[in-house]
């Protein structure tokens, strides 16, 4: 059957850079370990399985440079290996503990399989999960794009030099990691403002994504609403997120992930099990913490955590099938409605945080696989496309002037600028302004190796201070002290290094420690922050 419309599935994979080599069990590093086991490994497995069966997944994945750096960090890879090993050891004990309880045994076995799969995939790729993603892209199965160097909300960076540095470092990082130029750019938090058009084009990007109301704000310029790509006056391709398909997946209240059969995120065995029994698997402080083993299902709306029932993988999979069918039925109705009204074939762009699939919504990877398989096996009149494929095959997109927007709460910048987190901006700007001034001062000077290293590390610290994650964590009140500490540290590190260079008093030992800890962007050149840069 010929296609009546196209589906573009974009998964944005991002974690803030968290690397604490001096600590064997740092709490926030478990964000990375859990995301690897629950999201990245299952997604890679789904993509490889489909590809091996001749079903081209055709999804787009944005991998943030900070996540890419963590996936390639050998110290984190070693810790990840130990984490998986330790969970498998615990799960062996759990299989024994659950042997007389069939309901519990079923879910413990599921987790054992999940961690065993992670161990196998990590072993297969020697711990480096970029390798299979690169291979999938090389084989034309998926398209990988990038985002800002440290996921800064770009409209909140007033200095053009800072925006250009975020983009240029991202472009270079992608080239180094994937051995090709990045065509697409995911705007962190989908945060757009008009001055970004020229910076994105100058950095070599062909297209980006924006929130639906960015396109709707363009009014009559955008007659097809979110169902068509557009371009800016300087030729940057634009894709708009479809709110309806997002809502079905995102919304905890109305969306699929809230189904009673699905796994409950917030009840974790780390808080349930016997403390002495669990102690070897907790942190060095011995305090309870999430272990990533969640044995219960949502059970029902408003059900108390203590009243949750055991998760039944078979029951959940049946719901996955039903939800995949429902999702596709709705997309077909969308395409039919559009076709009836306008006589054209719409493009539906569905964008999600990758970590929703698996980590938050445990059944997400299975849902994605079911959706892709169903389109193929049932010969549905929909096709998965990647942005580059679509732009290469569609007519010249219409020019629009999109509106300022984000995909954050209320659609603008409220989550990153409010009374819980606005105190961070003076520190971010202090580091940024001094970095720019110092880059301007030294950009044409012959510097010794130590000063160059210090300036390059100051550039890394400045970029890390600009990450959107610190403001967001402060806003939601989760790991707020950690976020505040990280922001404070990066800003102070940058200012100290820059002062040391100016005063010719670089502390080599302290610099080396920072280079080991915050070892992102190995090829960074501090001059990227200069007002007139090589860029």
């Amino acid at each position: 059957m010929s296609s009546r419309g196209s589906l573009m599935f974009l998964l944005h994979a991002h974690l803030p850079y968290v690397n604490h080599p001096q600590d064997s069990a740092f709490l926030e590093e478990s964000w990375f370990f859990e995301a690897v086991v629950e999201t990245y490994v299952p997604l890679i497995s789904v993509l490889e399985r489909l590809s091996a069966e001749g079903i081209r997944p055709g999804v787009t994945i944005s991998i943030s440079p900070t996540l890419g750096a963590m996936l390639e960090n050998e110290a984190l890879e070693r810790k990840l290996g130990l984490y998986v090993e330790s969970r498998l050891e615990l799960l062996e004990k759990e299989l024994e503990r659950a042997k007389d309880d069939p309901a519990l045994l079923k879910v413990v076995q599921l987790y054992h399989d999940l961690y065993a799969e992670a161990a196998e995939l990590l072993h297969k790729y020697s711990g480096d999960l970029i390798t299979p993603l690169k291979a999938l892209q090389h084989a034309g199965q998926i398209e990988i794009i990038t985002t800002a160097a440290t996921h800064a909300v770009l409209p909140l960076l007033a200095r053009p030099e800072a925006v250009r540095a975020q983009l240029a470092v991202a472009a270079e990082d992608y080239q180094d990691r994937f051995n090709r130029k990045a065509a697409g750019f995911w705007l962190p938090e989908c945060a757009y403002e008009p001055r970004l058009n020229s910076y994105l084009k100058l950095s070599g990007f062909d297209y980006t994504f924006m929130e639906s109301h960015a396109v709707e704000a363009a009014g009559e310029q955008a007659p097809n609403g979110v169902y068509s790509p557009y371009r800016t006056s300087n030729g940057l391709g634009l894709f708009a997120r479809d709110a309806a398909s997002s809502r079905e997946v995102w919304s905890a209240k109305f969306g699929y992930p809230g189904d009673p059969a699905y796994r409950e995120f917030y009840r974790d065995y780390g808080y349930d099990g016997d403390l002495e029994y669990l102690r070897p698997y907790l942190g060095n402080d011995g305090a309870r913490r999430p272990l990533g083993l969640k044995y219960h299902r949502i059970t029902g709306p408003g059900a108390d955590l203590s009243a949750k029932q055991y998760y039944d993988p078979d029951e959940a999979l049946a719901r996955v099938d039903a939800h995949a069918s429902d999702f596709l039925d709705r997309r077909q109705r969308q395409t039919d409605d559009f076709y009836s009204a306008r006589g054209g074939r719409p493009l539906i762009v569905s964008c999600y945080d990758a970590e929703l699939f698996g980590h938050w919504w445990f059944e997400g990877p299975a849902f994605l696989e079911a959706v892709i398989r169903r389109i193929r096996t049932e010969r549905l009149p929909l096709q998965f496309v990647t942005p580059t494929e679509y732009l290469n095959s569609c007519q010249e997109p219409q020019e629009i002037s999109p509106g300022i927007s984000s995909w954050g709460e209320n659609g603008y910048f409220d989550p990153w600028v409010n009374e819980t987190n606005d105190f961070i901006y003076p520190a971010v700007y202090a580091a940024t302004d001094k970095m720019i001034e110092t880059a301007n001062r030294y950009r044409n000077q012959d510097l010794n190796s130590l000063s160059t290293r210090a300036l390059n590390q100051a550039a890394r610290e400045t970029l890390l201070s600009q990450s959107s994650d610190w403001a967001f964590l402060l806003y939601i009140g989760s790991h707020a002290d950690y976020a505040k500490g990280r922001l404070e540290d990066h800003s102070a590190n940058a200012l100290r290094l820059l002062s040391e260079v100016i005063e010719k008093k670089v502390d080599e030992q302290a610099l080396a420690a920072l280079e080991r800890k915050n070892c992102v962007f190995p090829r960074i050149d501090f001059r990227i922050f200069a007002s007139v840069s090589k860029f």
Partner: protein
Amino acid sequence: MPELSAQPPAEDRLVLLPKNPGTFFVFWQFSAGRADAFRSSSFASEIELRLSYSDDNSQAGTHRAAWQAGRAYLPAGRGGACVAALYALRNGAWEKLLESNQAFAPAPAGMAADRAYASMEFLKRSQP
């Protein structure tokens, strides 16, 4: 409200950032010398922030604050591109000390209230 430990900057700074269609966020920092001028009453203790539209330089609004407050939220008026300026009172006359970057207030898009945005809904679910 939490604060970060920060040394005064070498130069004064006034930064204007967009928040939403109705509001800008503005923050300012004074160098040690300028802060001393406020402390020694060379300037009055209250500063005035004036927001103006970039297209015609007309005024969008004013806001007064203590010089040490360091930040404020300003109504965005009719929106669009704006610039803020910080004034201080010396010898009975307002003196312009700083001008901010240009920032753009978003146009209200009339979004449906039930739209889901990003992972917020998950992250906001109550934790044990």
